[in-house]
């Protein structure tokens, strides 16, 4: 019999926090439960949208950071 999975289980699965045995069982459940499959697709879609919506800082900001890094020298004390 296929185990019943909740929305929380799916969230953990989508964010790769499930154990290998759980992964196997969730995959089985997704093959049999269309509602669960729909929920899974929705979660994947949302995740993808959030990934796609990542923003970038301006080049000016990045250049300022890189220039700062080159200019600063703090002489760290090294222990061998």
């Amino acid at each position, binding site marked *: 019999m296929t185990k019943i999975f909740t929305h929380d289980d799916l969230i953990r699965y989508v964010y790769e926090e499930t154990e290998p045995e759980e992964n196997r069982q969730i995959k089985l459940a997704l093959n049999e439960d269309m509602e669960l499959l729909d929920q899974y697709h929705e979660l994947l879609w949302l995740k993808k949208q959030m990934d*796609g*919506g990542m923003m970038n800082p301006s080049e000016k900001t990045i250049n300022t950071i890189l220039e700062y890094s080159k200019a600063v020298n703090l002489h760290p004390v090294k222990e061998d």
Partner: protein
Amino acid sequence: MNNQKTMLEDSKLVSQYINGNEVAFEELVNRHKSRIFTTIYMIVKDQYVAEDLMQEVFIKAIRTLKSGRYNEEGKFLPWILRIAHNLAIDKFRKNKRYPTIVMDDGNSVFETLEFAEGTFEDIQMKKDVHKSLRKLIQELPEAQKQVLIMRHYMDMSFKEISDQTGVSINTALGRMRYALINLRKKMQQYNIAYDQNFYS
């Protein structure tokens, strides 16, 4: 050119940087700039403030790395994301009392987004969805938004979120569930397209 096989681990880049290799630092910055910047932006909601904070975060990181105070046990990305999160939260709390006035000499908040190649319509549609989505995330109840940012943008596990926010893993997971359900509902409410082609 980087790929999975040749891409150096963050920890190696950090070591190289500490030993004076600025190119290694540039690689680290380019590798993680989007995630760090988006995390900051999601909290402060203003591109100009986010740009300033991005610099502050890296100045702090550079000074820690170059002074030899960096703890090798920690991973670079979670470490710098924590710095970003803390600075952004501080700024957000201050700005709540003193709202920032956006200057008119910069680009639009959304002009710096990177999108996959496609037709003009595809790109525009994705732009619209992403823009709306970020706006809707801002409308979520604070606890839900916090977990969503920590899990999705900061890549913290539910266990780490639970430890940091002082709630159980189940509560963190529940907040994430409500955040995602609410987000989906809001998107439906505003007729934001759910297009299966986005999987491609």
